[in-house]
């Protein structure tokens, strides 16, 4: 059985809500039913076959080709199966994902992986603000799973992060790890201003020294035995994080945000 493939024919002017096209909702559907699904685009509804050429039949293995930055909510609440995006994705990629795997070859927009529960999200390009964050007003961001970004991430990475891991090979914007409750964010590149703003607990793991707020306390240098174990967990990833040369166990440790609980930590490679 070949993967169910949606190849974008036209680029609509308005954004498209792709949330109906996830594995668990398409299970047991005929190709004609799938072609007839209506997708909200601005104030109009468009049939799937107006936007896409549809081929293949394996609904648990979806490929979206020619994708571009106005296709929002790809893989929303995905519960098992895999989605591969060739091109860019719009906002809310993998929002609330429950399990399964989403990979994208291009860039993702705002709120990628927001409030994700479990599963694996891999973004080959860059990603917008609020990666793995919480929707406005909500108190909990990503609760589990793993996000890997090979490019750069925008601001507010892991806002209100509750659990799970975010790995960024490139740079992260301002307010990385803001309001984190727990969880882990690792950034190989540079980080912006207000790192860990109002974080309560959790770990920020950095390869480069950050600009830290005065509300973080220097706790000295440490050799941490858990770090080799953490890196070992990344060994199977298709990523620089899997490279044993990237691993380290000697860090400068900072605790904060002292304006909040202060039980979070920023670990910087030395």
């Amino acid at each position, binding site marked *: 059985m070949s993967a169910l493939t949606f190849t974008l024919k036209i680029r609509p002017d308005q954004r498209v809500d792709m949330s109906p096209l996830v594995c668990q909702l398409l299970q047991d559907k005929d190709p004609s039913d799938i072609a007839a699904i209506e997708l909200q685009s601005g104030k109009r509804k468009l049939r799937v076959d107006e936007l896409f050429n549809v081929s293949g039949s394996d609904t648990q293995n979806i490929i979206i080709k020619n994708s571009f930055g106005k296709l929002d909510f790809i893989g929303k609440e995905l519960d098992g199966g895999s989605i591969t995006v060739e091109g860019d994705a719009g906002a809310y990629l993998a929002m609330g994902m429950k399990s399964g795997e989403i990979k994208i070859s291009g860039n993702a927009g705002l709120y990628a992986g927001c409030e994700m529960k479990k599963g694996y999200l891999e973004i080959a390009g860059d990603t917008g603000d609020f990666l793995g964050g919480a*929707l*406005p*007003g*909500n*108190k909990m961001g990503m609760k589990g799973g793993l996000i890997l970004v090979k490019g750069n991430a925008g601001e507010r990475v892991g806002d209100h992060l509750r659990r799970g891991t975010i790995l960024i090979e490139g740079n992260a914007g301002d307010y990385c790890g803001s309001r984190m409750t727990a969880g882990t964010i690792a950034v190989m590149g540079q980080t912006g201003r207000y790192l860990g703003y109002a974080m309560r607990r959790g770990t920020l793991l950095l390869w480069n020294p950050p600009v830290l707020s005065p509300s973080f306390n220097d706790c000295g240098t440490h050799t941490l035995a858990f770090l080799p174990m953490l890196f070992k967990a990344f060994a199977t990833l298709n990523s620089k994080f899997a490279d044993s040369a990237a691993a380290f166990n000697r860090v400068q440790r900072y605790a904060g945000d002292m304006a909040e609980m202060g039980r979070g930590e920023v670990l910087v490679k030395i």
Partner: protein
Amino acid sequence: MLIKLSGGTVYDPAAGIAGQQQDIYIGNGRIINPPADAKPDKEYDLKGKVVMSGAIDMHTHIGGGKGNIARTLLPEDHRQDPVASTHICRSGCGHAMPSTFVTGYRYAEMGYTAGFEPALLPINARQAHMEMGDIPILDKGGYVMLGSDDYLLRMLTAKKDQKAINDYVAWTIQSAKAIGIKVVNPGGINAFKFNQRKLDLDEQNSHYGVSPREILQVLATAVKEIGVSHPLHVHGCNLGVPGNMQTTLDTIQGIGGLPMHLTHIQFHSYGTEGDFKFSSGAAQIAEAVNKNKNITIDVGQILFGQTVTASGDSMRQHANHKHASPNKWVTMDIECDAGCGVVPFKYKDQNFVNALQWAIGLETFLLVDDPWRIFLTTDHPNGAPFTCYPHLIRLLMDKSFRNDMLATIHPEAQKMTTLASIDREYSLQEIAIMTRAGAAKLIGLKDRGGLSAGNWADITVYTDNPNREQMFEKPDYVFKDGELVVVDGKVVATKWGTTHTVKPDFDPSVEKGLKEYFDRYLTMKLGNFKISDEEITEDGRGSITVHPLKG
């Protein structure tokens, strides 16, 4: 256009009609006597249907800044309940604190044709009227909030005479385009700003040296003397505090026979008995209400689920912020005039306190004898969103349903309530009194809340159904001012209601002292503070109805 509603079973307590088959004629928006020969342009066959006047919610938070704070605080409340536009209705959203348009549609779809905002802050009254001006179909009005305002407290400290206070109260009602006076935690909102975290009925404000009892007395006297029909609308001291039943009983005694409306009394009816030091005071409160004919109450029933509490009582909201669910809240001062607290709540049937609150509200409904003096409210959105009313009506009208629900709540709470032993079931006539005729009488609405000739044609038609929840959540027809606006529980046409007000007289010299005060202390000038009729009517859809004064 002449409309005839034929053969419906009419419940019109205002005219003493309880379930008689009658024809109703509508002409020019009002109910008229049967015309001698004219043939109706449109006739509705209502045989077997229940006909009541449009329901009136006499206490519902539908306008004013706190609503917008709640909306801003809870975007998820809106995200989870989107409402698409139709060719008749505008789009909107919201469950606990819906958008203005959705508020109007949802009320109308339950057969309501009027709602009254109980906490119109004088300094924010303009915004509240503008917001209510965006609520379609419903008539609206507001009770203007006094009692924690700096100016009144200064007057009391300076021992100004009752006449001066009457002038200030009447001037405020006119300036804010209100229909009554509301007091929230009398003096307590102000005392909070002087770092007092509780204020009992006879406790003095540490700065002004004024007690809540004095504030209630002068304001209740003022309301009576300037001739406003709606009695002083009181949100008492110690909201939500175990043992506050005694405060409420003292408040009833302390008012000395003056007319007084105690609002959301469920939150003020708590004892301190039992293992958890929290018990029902409903029986004692109901006894006091039954005995004191000057007292009217509305219940403020809680119903289980997610909602948000929005109140002017910043003192008590601050104390309750620990219970915020989800955990985010706002308490603020409003221009030294009053306060505001917004705390989201999720009432749970397996939580002892919430479960007992639920039972206390129902006990109150069932133990107060006179339906003309008790009103059906959830203090929307504080106890539950107004969309829960049909469910609440079923709880009141259906004993076995009530007992089934009772059996599901926290077991310790079941032991602490007498609810299971109360056999009373509300009749349709009693529901019509509580939600129509009684409410119109309480607020002092002329030509509303009744179905006799001369009344405005606000009419709701239901299909009789033993399941009262289904019956009341989906009326067959709703007419507003003679126009058909709802069919089968869906809005089919929309229009604009009026704003109900009163205009009590005052001595114009009252503005002299006020002008100096405004110039020195406040953010706006006296001239801008006063709302003109045109501000409500100039958009072509709002209108003002002035109701007569008493005596």
